[in-house]
């Protein structure tokens, strides 16, 4: 694709992303989403972000791999435990990287 075609593609993707982000902010005051929608909302980021994350932790070259050949699985477990206990972003990301480098070095 030419640079111009790529930039037009970015623009289309950007406008769509913006429309999604603007959607309910624009509608506020004109339209009230139904109660079930509000109840379901908190599950959206949990489900979407976990769906993006889990294959990164569990799969190696498209196959589920939970042995010592997959340091990302173990480092991910460390990060999940740290996040659950301390609920601290910096500590979670830092310990995840530290665990990955440690397991890469050991395994």
């Amino acid at each position, binding site marked *: 694709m030419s640079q111009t075609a790529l930039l037009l593609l970015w623009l*289309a993707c950007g406008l769509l992303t913006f429309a999604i982000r603007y959607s309910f902010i624009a509608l506020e005051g004109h339209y009230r989403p139904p109660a079930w929608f509000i109840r379901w909302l908190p599950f959206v*980021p949990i489900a979407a972000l976990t769906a993006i994350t889990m294959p990164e932790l569990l799969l190696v070259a498209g196959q589920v791999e939970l042995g010592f050949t997959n340091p990302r699985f173990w480092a991910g477990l460390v990060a999940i435990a740290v996040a659950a206990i301390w609920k601290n*972003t910096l500590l979670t990301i830092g310990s995840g990287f530290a665990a990955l480098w440690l397991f890469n070095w050991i395994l």
Partner: protein
Amino acid sequence: MTPASAFLLGVRALLPMMLGVAPFGVIYGVVALQSGIPPLAAFLMSSLVFAGSAQFLLAQLVGVGAPALLMVGAVGLINLRHALYSASVAPVLAHLPRRWKLLLSYLLTDEAYAAAIPHLLAEPRSPQAHWILFGSGFALWFGWQLSTLAGVLVGSQLPADLGLDFALPLTFIAIVVPLIDSRARLIAALVAGAVAVLLVALPYKTGLFAAALAGLAAGAFIQGRKAT
């Protein structure tokens, strides 16, 4: 709370997340160049699209020569979760002029939302609350531009065994795990994760969307049963 103090509160709340966002931005730059995207276009995607995981996916799809319409659709699907953030912050922004709503919509990302929302919920009636979201959103935007620029310029010289692409899962773990405070939410996460792994072979990551819907339905079902 003054606008300046609210803005700084938002910036400070976002800063810890930069530890995950910055390496991810660098990796995005590397992946974009490897996919054959020219450096300028790779950098401009960060302001035109401005969505980390979608940019990553889009760069990879350009690399494999996917049809343009499918690429736009894939970006839409992966960013659909931002509609939730939009609905969530809409009441806080209701009183603002349109230019504020447009600006804050453009800046509404996973990280900015996760950083700002505890403060927005704590001060829902503050007339300056939108400055908190602006602080978080602007800090993330600025950090993302810098880190993707660094990735485009020098990323190819970094050793590959640092595993910097691990930053995305780690950032999402840091956002999601503290949100899981009930059995229904735990089940939503487990079902979404399991379905995503099962459907990973589907083309163009369409399995992600099915997985997110399955997790959402499972969580809502468990919560609904408890309520009745």
